């Protein structure tokens, strides 16, 4: 599978600087790059050195809205050209989003390509935050909140210009207490630290239950001691897709499936698209509770808990009739 790393962050937060540095690393020699800029004339393209044949610039609009179809087509085209040998056999794709992009539709597009069997899989989501303007940006720009909320790794930039503000650190921690935060100057970070760590590992799921941060993006943690039937999980995902799908930025979880209690299932989804569960060989810790992390807008923890309870009760009643 070819991982697709998403590099996002608000305008001026240092995405291109970071990407330019990363692409100098031999570890990213076999990387295809897709850069999206909001505006008629692309500049970032000229600031990043990469092999032209594996380099695609999308400058017709913001990746998350007007040209999402272009992104899907671009990825599919890259994969086809790779298979046909007209581009080098890249082993990774990096997408630098526009600073104004809502990440959810982009993640959805990547996972949709996975659904279509194009051989790609969502890799890490890396978000840059500007130490100088970050706090103000997070207060004013809803997209920046979403960019931080979905990140697997947060990069705090421009710390040479301003000491990281305690308020900014607190705001970031409230939005996304799970992702590690690295202070990086001029994009200077080891590619291994950023791209090759485990993206969706169960250890990611350390969040305060019921953590809510403002009216926009919420992070909800559902924890259950009782194992979950496989069918309960299926029906739960179906109902989540139906009723909160468009608002669900990310869902990830480790699930104790009643039918396979010794092998936890790791699930991962964006909006209404979910990967098939990965079955771990064993539980990574003594904690065998099911833990689901949902990040999105307009989510309601009581509704999700009531939904699981009702599905479970329905299946329990059904089993007594069998």
């Amino acid at each position, binding site marked *: *599978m070819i*991982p697709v790393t998403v590099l996002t962050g608000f305008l001026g937060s240092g995405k291109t600087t970071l990407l330019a540095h990363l692409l100098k690393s031999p570890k990213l020699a076999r990387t295809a790059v897709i850069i999206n800029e909001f505006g008629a004339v692309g500049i970032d393209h000229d600031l990043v050195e990469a092999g032209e044949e594996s380099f695609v610039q999308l400058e017709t609009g913001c990746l998350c809205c007007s040209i999402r179809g272009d992104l899907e087509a671009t990825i599919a085209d890259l994969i086809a050209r790779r298979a046909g040998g007209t581009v080098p056999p890249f082993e990774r794709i990096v997408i630098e989003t526009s600073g104004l992009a809502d990440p959810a539709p982009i993640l959805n597009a990547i*996972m*949709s390509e*996975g*659904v279509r*069997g194009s051989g790609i*899989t969502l*890799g*890490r989501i890396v978000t840059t935050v500007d130490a100088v303007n970050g706090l103000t940006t997070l207060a004013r720009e809803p997209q920046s909140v979403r960019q931080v909320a979905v990140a697997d790794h947060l990069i705090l930039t421009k710390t040479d210009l301003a000491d990281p503000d305690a308020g900014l650190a607190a705001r970031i921690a409230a939005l996304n207490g799970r992702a590690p935060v690295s202070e990086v100057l001029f994009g200077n970070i080891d590619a291994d630290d950023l*791209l*090759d*760590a*485990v*993206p*969706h*590992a169960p250890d990611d799921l350390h969040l305060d239950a019921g953590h809510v941060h403002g009216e926009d993006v919420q992070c909800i943690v559902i924890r259950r001691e009782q194992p979950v039937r496989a069918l309960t999980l299926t*029906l*739960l*995902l*179906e*109902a*989540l*897709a*139906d*009723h*909160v*799908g*468009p608002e669900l930025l990310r869902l990830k979880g480790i699930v104790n499936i009643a039918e396979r209690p010794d092998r936890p299932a*790791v699930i*991962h989804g964006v*909006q*209404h*698209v*979910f*990967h*098939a*569960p*990965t079955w771990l060989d064993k539980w990574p810790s003594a904690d065998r509770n099911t833990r689901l992390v949902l990040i999105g807008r*307009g989510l*309601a923890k*009581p*509704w999700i808990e*009531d*939904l699981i*309870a*009702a*599905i*479970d*009760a*329905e299946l*329990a*009643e*059904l089993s*007594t009739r069998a």
Partner: protein
Amino acid sequence: MNSPETDQMLVALARLLTSSLALWKHRGTVRRETRGAIVVEADGHVTHIVRAAPGIPFRWSITIDGRERVAGSVSGLLRMLRSSLDPDFRPSRVRIAPIEITLL
């Protein structure tokens, strides 16, 4: 006379329907009737929900404003109820990628 499991299911369903109205931002009421039916009244619509009769390959009978429909599960029932309350509701059907997650 309902079994304890059926009673438990109806209690859980009634609770879910109440929180669903809140999630969907509809004002309304959910009540259980004596013979196991659940009645949802919201925005001028009246919905009766009962377990489907034995022998029918669906689990729920849902009568919305006098018109009977059926659903195979709680999630199907929710979809049907919301469709009656929100004409613009378009469920986003779940899609499952045919590949396992790659732990990079």
